Structures are given as C-alpha cells and as structure tokens.
C-alpha cells in the first residue's frame, strides 16, 4: 500500500479496473477512442476535471503513437488502483519506435523530470514550437503540466513504453 492507501497493481486485482486497447492508430478514430477512455475513467473518478486530465494524457499518448509508431500499432492500458483516500491511475502506451524516436522521448521525459519549473519549461517549448510546421512536440509536456501526470518510459528492444501516472481523489469505487 502506498502513501495514499492505494494497492499496488499486482495485489487485489479485482480492485484494479483495467482497460486495455490494441489500437491501430488513425486520426479519424481519436475522438471515439478518447470518449471511450473518458467514459471508463468517469466510472471510477467523480471529479470531472480529473477525468479531463486523464483524457488529455491518454489522448496525447495516442496522438504521439499515430505520429511515431513504427508499425502503426499501439497497445494502451489504463489501470485504476483504488485506495482508501486516493486512486492511482496509470496509463501505459507501448509501440515499436525508431532509435531516433526513443532518444527524443527519453530526452523529453528526463528534461521534464529534471525541470525546476515544469510550467516554465512548457512555456519555453510552446515558444520553440511555433516555428515548426509539422508536429507540435508539446504532447509529453502537456501530459506533465496540464494533466499533472508523472512520466516514465521503458525500452525493450524496439518497443517503447511510455507511462503516465497520477493520483486523483477517491472515486468511490465499491
């Protein structure tokens, strides 16, 4: 049990509602998938703002996968670890990625984790992004700052997994 009373993911699995999606990313499916994620999270989290934060995180991870997945497939898993006072929500997106993409994600996440002021870093990234014509590069920073999620990553071969995790007030899951 962690500091908020949430069970670890490998215990009491019946108390860990999980949504797993194998997604063939297509921009036209984003809205429907996001609404599905919102509905799932809204079942366990009462605060609409917290649900929106989770929806942003899931959406940005999916949008990234559309842009960068090497083979067009992404596996996304969302787990709600309910505790007595708070619930821990974990979102994992995993896909094949090029070495360049892996380096970019590693650098972005480590820079965000090391930042003294992540919001100022986000603002700096916004300014830097406006000269780009293609991808904004703001997605991970937005997950960190706007969705208030802790970010992590894991690389296994050419598989890149990105983790976004946050705590929300207990949603009353019985």
């Amino acid at each position, binding site marked *: 049990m962690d500091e908020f009373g949430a069970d670890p993911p490998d215990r009491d699995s019946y108390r860990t509602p999980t949504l797993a999606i194998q997604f063939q990313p297509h*921009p*036209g499916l*984003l809205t429907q998938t996001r609404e599905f994620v919102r509905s799932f999270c809204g079942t366990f989290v009462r605060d609409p*703002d917290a649900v929106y934060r989770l929806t942003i995180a899931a*959406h*940005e991870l999916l*949008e990234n996968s*559309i842009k960068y997945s090497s083979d067009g497939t992404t596996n996304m898993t969302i787990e709600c670890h309910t505790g007595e006072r708070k619930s821990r929500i974990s979102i994992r997106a995993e896909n094949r990625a090029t070495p360049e993409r892996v380096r970019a994600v590693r650098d972005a996440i480590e820079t965000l984790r090391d930042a003294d002021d992540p919001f100022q870093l986000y603002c700096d990234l916004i300014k830097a992004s*406006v000269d780009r014509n293609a991808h904004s590069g703001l997605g991970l920073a*937005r997950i960190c700052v706007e969705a208030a999620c802790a970010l992590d990553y894991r690389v296994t071969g050419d598989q890149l997994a990105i983790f976004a995790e946050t705590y929300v007030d207990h949603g009353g899951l019985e």
Partner: protein
Amino acid sequence: MNSLTLAPLTLAGFEAVPSVKDATIELALRGNADMTVSATLGKYLKELDAQTRHKGVRAVHVKLGDLYFLSSSCFQAIAAWVLSIAGRAPEDRYTVHFETHAAQGWQKRSLEAIRRVAPAVTVVS
C-alpha cells in the same frame, strides 16, 4: 466596420465561426479540435489575422463555450497565432480575448500557458 470575407470553417466534429460585433471580431470555436483539424485551423487563423489587421480591429474575442477538447497540435496553432501578434510593434497588435466556459475547467488551465507566453496581447476570462 464591414463584414468579414472569411467564411466559417466547418470540419468533421469541429467548426470555427467568425462574426463582427461592434468594433471587435468574434470567433466561436465549437466541437473537438483534434489533430485532424490543426493544419487547417492554423491556416484559417492566419487568414483571420490578415483580415483583422486589414480592418484595424483592436480585439478578437474567442468564444470557447462549446469547445470540448483541444489537442496539442491545435493548441500549437493557437499559440502560433497569438505569438505572431505579440511579436509585432505595439501599434500593429490587437488583443485576443479567450472567453472560457466555467463548466470546461480545462480551458483556463490550458490557456494560462498561452497567456504566460504572450501576456501583452492575451486575456483569459
């Protein structure tokens, strides 16, 4: 003020509707601003900017009451618009006033970053 020659932008699940009201321009953004919208929205805002400057308008009110989601790529398009205004000489600037909806609490949080990077031309209410 003459009316705009800019037509509403209508895409799947999203629309941008401009109008002239008194001495300002209103732009209502509605629906879900997903990544499929971003490139078109960016071009549209450039055209809106050109017409706003041409008419000497001092403020654009962006109404967000019916905007339900803003992806980072569309956020970037809006940031690029606002930062381009902020980068001009003061006499060539106009104010962008984002009118958020209380029921969409994310809007103020998202737009706070834009207000921070371009405080001279951005109002969020």
